[in-house]
Structures are given as C-alpha cells and as structure tokens.
C-alpha cells in the first residue's frame, strides 16, 4: 500500500460513502445542538463577577426553561433582539414580588433577601418596583460598580433563554 493510499484510507476510512454520510450527520447534529440546545457564549464584562469572569466561555442550556420555571437565585441568559448577544443576570425577584434596594440590601416585599453569592457589600438604593405577572427581576452579582452603570431590572419571561451549564 502506497503513502497516498494510506493517507486516503485515514481520511476516508474503509468506505468513503459511509464516512461522508457520518460526517454529514455529525455536522447536522452539531448544528442543531449548538444553535438551539447548547448556545456557546463568551462572557464580556464584569457584571457577574465573581461567579462569572470576563473572557470565560460557557454554554447556555436553552432547554431548561422549556421544562422548568425560572426560580429565585437562578443565573439566566437574557436575549436582546436575538440570541447573538445575551445578558447574564441573576433572578432575585419573582412574579408579583415588590423589589427594592436599601443601602445595598435587596428587599423582597419588605423582607431582606439573603444573598450568599455576593462577596462584597454595596450601597445601592432604588425605590420599590412591582414585578409583573410574566416578569422576573434580574440583577448582576457585581454590585461594586455605581448603580447607574449597571444594567438590571424587570425582564419578560419570554426573553429568558436559558441558564449557563456551569
């Protein structure tokens, strides 16, 4: 067997036709998986520090909230106009809750929310808002930045795409 034949065998296997079909099926499965089920993301920015670092990569499980309802404490990916850019935030307010920030503490309907995922205290203040029936209140974990530079608030349920895998 010549070198060309050996290389051909390595590339195409015993049956080129089946290798071609297998490659096609693999490409199709990969497309479906990474387009609709596990969305690859690269985190930009520091709004979810220390849980998620700037520049790290992750996968968003887009099936989770097709089966389960989002719950308080979940980190969720939120779509904007589409899924090319996603916001990563944590749910702190559920539908019907009244959410306020008082000297850095989150008050849910008047009661302080324990937030073990926060490493440092902050001094945020924001008037109470009522979370609508199909809404969730989301915020980043990094509250060291001034409140006016942080994107947070109420988001529609339909905008929540999924949750990061790790």
């Amino acid at each position, binding site marked *: 067997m010549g070198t060309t034949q050996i290389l051909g065998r390595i590339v195409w296997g015993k049956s080129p036709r089946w290798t071609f079909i297998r490659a096609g099926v693999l490409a199709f499965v990969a497309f479906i998986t990474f387009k609709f089920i596990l969305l690859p993301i690269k985190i930009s920015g520091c709004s979810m520090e220390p849980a998620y670092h700037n520049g790290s990569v992750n996968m968003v499980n887009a099936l989770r909230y097709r089966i389960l309802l989002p719950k308080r404490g979940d980190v969720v990916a939120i779509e904007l106009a*589409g899924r090319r850019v996603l916001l990563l935030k944590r749910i702190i307010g559920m539908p019907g809750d009244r959410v306020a920030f008082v000297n850095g503490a989150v008050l849910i309907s008047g009661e302080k929310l324990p937030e073990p995922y926060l490493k440092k205290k902050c001094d945020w203040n924001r008037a109470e808002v009522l979370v609508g029936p199909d809404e969730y209140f989301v915020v980043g974990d990094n509250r060291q930045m001034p409140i006016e530079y942080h994107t947070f608030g109420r988001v529609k349920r339909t905008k929540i795409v999924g949750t990061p895998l790790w």
Partner: protein
Amino acid sequence: MVKRTLLFAVIIGLVVSAIFFFRWFRHRDERQIRKNLNTLASLVSKSPGESSFILVGRAKNAADYFTEDCLISVGSELQEIKGRDEIPGTIILAQNFFTQLTATPVDITVRIGEDKKTAQSGLTLKVVGYGPASTQPFLEAREIEIDWQKPEKKWLLSEVHPVSTLR
C-alpha cells in the same frame, strides 16, 4: 442511466436556482436595509490613529442615511437627536471619547410595510470602545428599533429608539 442522472441533476439545479433568484428579488428591500445598517455601523466606527479629516467625512456620509426630519432617541438620560443636520456632530462627539470604536448590528429583523415605502427593523447594537486611559473596553449592547422610509430609491432611517429589555 448516466443521461437520466444528469437530467435529474440539471432539473434539481434549475429548481434550486429558481428558488434562490425568487428569494433574492423578493427580499431586495430587506437586503438594502441590512446593507445600510452595516454600512452605517462601519461609518460610525473608528480605527486607532484614524485622522479627524477622514472621520468628519465619514460622519457626513453617515447623515445621508437618515431622513431630513429624523428622530433618534439614544436613551432617557440623553437628549434626542432631531434632524439630519445634528448627526455628524453627534457622531464626532461620541468618537472623541474613544481611541477605537466598533459598532456592530446583530440579530437584524426587517419588516417591510405593505406600501413598500416604510419598514421597521429590530436589532441588537453591539458597541465596543477603547478609551485613551482605560485598560478595560467600554461594552454596550442595546436592543434598538428603527423606522425606515423610502422617499425615492434609497431606504432612509426616520426614527431610532431603544427598547428597554430590562426596565
């Protein structure tokens, strides 16, 4: 057998080409709007060390993509931009904050009106800017809706307003 296979391949090729050309002509307006958005984003972007002369020229070109009485709402905390004449100055002012600025429209959707003279589009505008002193880039992603008008042959932006995904 070979002839039949060849005929079959030719028919399939013709059908695929017909579908492609049908879609291509049908979505001509949508393509033009997408192209306008991408061109506008490149006109607003700034490379490091780019001369002010070129930037001013590009900002003036960018204004040609807007209607004369356009209305741009950048956010509640900032003023609205009213009219095409205000656009070049606003672009240059924004560029002055950064040594490098990249604007990228993604997830673009276009809905052409029944009159074929108006359209709406939705998109996420991704902006990455590097300041002269800061080590961390300025990152912003915002959902935007745009109203378009086609007074003559060219699609022009008539109204731009942000969508509050989180409110």
